[in-house]
């Protein structure tokens, strides 16, 4: 935690992306979260992902609700507009914003309280709406800003800092999203940047709703012995079933993948993800098989990570179903929207 603003001066030797921008230019204001917070690692991964994609900062829209996780949208890409809305209601802001301008990249950052308790209704419906956005849940099983209450993702038997044991079953956002037919579902760990960055990049480029559940430990209220969302427990129990490599458009797939273990998937903008199966029995394109696999592993206290499910052929994205104009609605000139006096005069005949 620091109150000192970092100067945005870049050393000339810092690497630049194809826009000539350094990673520093994708940073935001200083984090006010606790030192060691998993969320700051997620923020760093988002910075890396945007830099790697050579995204124009203003082409990104950052959205969030309320909570520690929701504060993080201020900590990356200061050149993008951000909307920190009300608790659990970020999906509706995202839906309206996306309806108005389909041309931008929408990234929502939420937490387990924001998404799985107060906001579960909006989460469920934004998945059903198949809104084109990346939705990150920074999942730590605990309410931080109100000092340590269990959240709806807390596992049965996990212990709170003050000693009480949780007895209510958790809501797993990955299983929830699979049930609702989400076409991009992933899980990762804030401590595994190598896995998280390509997932974020692929999620941003996926045409439709992309959910990444990021296990992101709370160092202050949920990093103790007996917690199932601590750094230690997570490191021991996360288990990558399928890794994803993100390949930007116009780049060759450089690495040789063993046949049968890798699946290249083309994204709608021409970029690709190559899925590397670490467990040969796993099929990320089969939704019900993925569901069973994840559920069985959860019963064994194993969090399966990686790109759990992807269906890039799906065409139910909101604007696609709505037949919305290809150009952003907010860019259509007024003259094309207002039918004019002659049309109105003619219309009046229907009401006599």
């Amino acid at each position, binding site marked *: 935690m620091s109150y000192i603003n970092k100067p945005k001066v870049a050393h000339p030797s810092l690497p630049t992306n194809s826009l000539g921008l350094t990673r520093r230019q994708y940073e935001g204001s200083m984090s006010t979260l606790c030192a060691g917070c998993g969320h700051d690692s997620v923020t760093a991964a988002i910075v890396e992902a945007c830099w790697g994609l050579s995204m*124009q*900062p*203003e*082409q990104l*829209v950052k959205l969030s609700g309320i909570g520690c996780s929701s504060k993080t*949208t*201020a900590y990356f890409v*200061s*050149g*993008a*507009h*951000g*909307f*920190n*809305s*009300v608790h659990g*209601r970020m*999906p*509706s*802001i*995202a*839906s*309206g*914003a*996306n*309806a*108005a*301008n389909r*041309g*931008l990249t929408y990234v929502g950052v939420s937490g387990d309280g924001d998404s799985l308790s107060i906001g579960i*209704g*909006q989460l*469920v*419906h934004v998945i059903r*709406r198949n809104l084109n956005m990346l939705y990150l849940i920074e999942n730590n099983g605990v309410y931080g800003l109100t000092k340590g209450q269990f959240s709806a993702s807390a596992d049965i038997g996990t212990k709170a800092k003050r000693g009480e044991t949780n007895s209510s079953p958790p809501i797993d956002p990955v299983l929830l999203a699979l049930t609702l037919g989400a076409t991009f579902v992933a899980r990762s760990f804030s401590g595994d940047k190598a896995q998280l960055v390509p997932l974020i990049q692929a999620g941003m480029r996926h045409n439709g709703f992309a959910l990444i559940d990021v296990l992101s430990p709370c160092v202050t209220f949920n990093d103790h012995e007996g917690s199932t969302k601590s750094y230690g427990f997570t490191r021991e129990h996360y288990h990558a079933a399928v890794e994803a490599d993100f390949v930007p458009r116009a780049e060759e797939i450089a690495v040789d993948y063993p046949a049968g273990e890798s699946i290249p998937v083309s994204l709608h903008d021409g970029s690709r993800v190559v899925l590397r199966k670490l467990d040969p029995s796993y099929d990320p394109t089969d939704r019900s098989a993925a569901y069973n696999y994840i559920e069985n592993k959860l019963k064994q206290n194993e969090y399966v990570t990686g790109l759990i499910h992807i269906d890039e052929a799906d065409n139910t994205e909101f*604007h696609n179903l*709505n*037949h*919305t*104009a*290809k150009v*952003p*609605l*907010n860019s*259509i000139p*007024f003259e*094309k*929207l*207002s*039918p*004019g*006096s002659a*049309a*109105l*005069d003619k*219309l*009046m005949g229907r*009401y*006599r």
Partner: protein
Amino acid sequence: MPSLIAEANRVNDFVVKFANVNGTGSASANSLIMKAIFRMGVPVTGKNYFPSNIQGLPTWYEIRVTRDGYAARASHVDIMVAMNAETYSKDVRELRSGGYLIYDSTWPRSALLQRGDITVIPVPLAKLVNENFDGVRNRILLKNIAYAGVLAALLDVDLDVISGLLSESYGKKPKLLDSNTRALRLGYDYVKEQLTSPLPLRVEHMEKTRGHIMMDGNTAAGLGCVYAGATVGAWYPITPSTSLMDAFKGFCERYRVDPETGERNFAILQAEDELAAVGMVLGASWNGARAFTPTSGPGISLMNEFIGLAYYAEVPCVIFDVQRVGPSTGMPTRTQQGDIMICAYASHGDTRHVLLFPANPEECFYMAAQAFDIAERLQTPVFVLSDLDIGMNDWMCPDLKWDDAYKPDRGKVLSKQDLDGMEKFYRYLDRDDDAIPYRTLPGMSAKGAYFTRGSGHNQYGGYTEDSAEYQVVLDRLKRKFANAPKYLPKPVLIGKGNNAVGIVSIGSCDGAIREALDVLRLSKIEVDYLRVKAFPFNIDVEAFLKAHSTIFVVEQNRDAQLKSLLTLETAVEKSKLFSILSYSGLPISAQPIVDEIRAKLAEAPRLTAVPR
């Protein structure tokens, strides 16, 4: 209240009420009669009193034939078409003395016909229809058209006009046109052959509806949103606002779909609830689209949190509240003006909002367009407070007109060029000293990027918990609200303005008040009337309150919400204000206004003294 003005001559001046069963198709027959009279050049109003039900409960429709063009509900019934056995005895009681009762005499109900002061007109409708048509559903539907034929004969409604309307409805379905025409003739011919017609209450051709339409306020508001260039509509279905979005959708499909590609220049989001609906409006407006949501009282209650965010983060937002009877679920299909206070101060903390009060469908159209200009100019939520009576009933209105020279006021939005020319952009800085800051849209320029938040922020857009910084923004918001009236429609004054007694009112009370003024004038009571069209109040409202010694505040709720708002927001002395309240769920009529003003003035004649 035509009876008070000219009892003798009842041509083009009477009320017909239809008592029906919900879901039996009576609405089309009732509107057929109303529209035929309208096309004969005679002003009409139609009020639908329907249940919160899909099928089976009682429903009424009231047509007021009003040669003087009054818009309000009459408070009496001259002719009752009693088609619902369940409400029959109540319907008979409601008839005024000297009135006419039309009933289906297929099943005689002599025991109930115990009023000697009315004329009973028996017509064996079911028998006539059953003898001529097959199929249960078909017979039910056509019985309605048969009673329309009965009325046409009794009231002397032009049969050619009705035939013309039927042809327009069923022109492409010859079988339906044929059965409807035959059913109409069944009723019509029965009257002509068996009864004396027309009645003394009858219709004659006039020339008073030329240049007018019959339209409901939700249709007009939906059309206004299309003309204003709204591209995003978000909503959760709720009576009585649903038909506003239906209308918007219908007009968009007509005017906003590319005929070649099928691409749509609009997006409608049916949200999971009203919280999400208003959130979508905020998201879309923040992102530079004109966006709106139609709702009613329960929806407003749910939207409160987001409304506070829109106020504080200064996000434009247009909300149509088609008010219905509260509290709670209340009576969803009855009308009220009960959301004035909740809308004026919606959400926690110090918040206050712009309200517009349309009085009829015509104003719904114009105010819909205006609402977007105001919301974007002031960067704040704007409520258009319609009600069920305006929203769902057909009103006679002058033809809607559109000025092609109109340019939308998109408010203080910086372009990329503006930003390029600036050293630095600060979201909440009062650069022009008009209390309205500049905003930017996402996607335009990294230089214009800012972080929108409902948490404490300073004038530079940064997070703050500093008292002074917080207050700078709060105080500017207060100034912005105080300046708002110059962007809002002014109140309408009826009367010379120098009478001692005045009326202040809003919205759909207008028709009843104008009629009451005519009646009062007959007994030499002159009253000035100020119709408030917006909140925060214009300076003219303050002046009117000051200039009148006795002021009746007419509104349709129990708790005198408009009066409360006047006492809170102006310097008026409470003792000068007298409430006239109507909260039965039915649209207000002129009668209680006349009665209460007469009674009050009789009790204290000094009230009419002109203040010095």
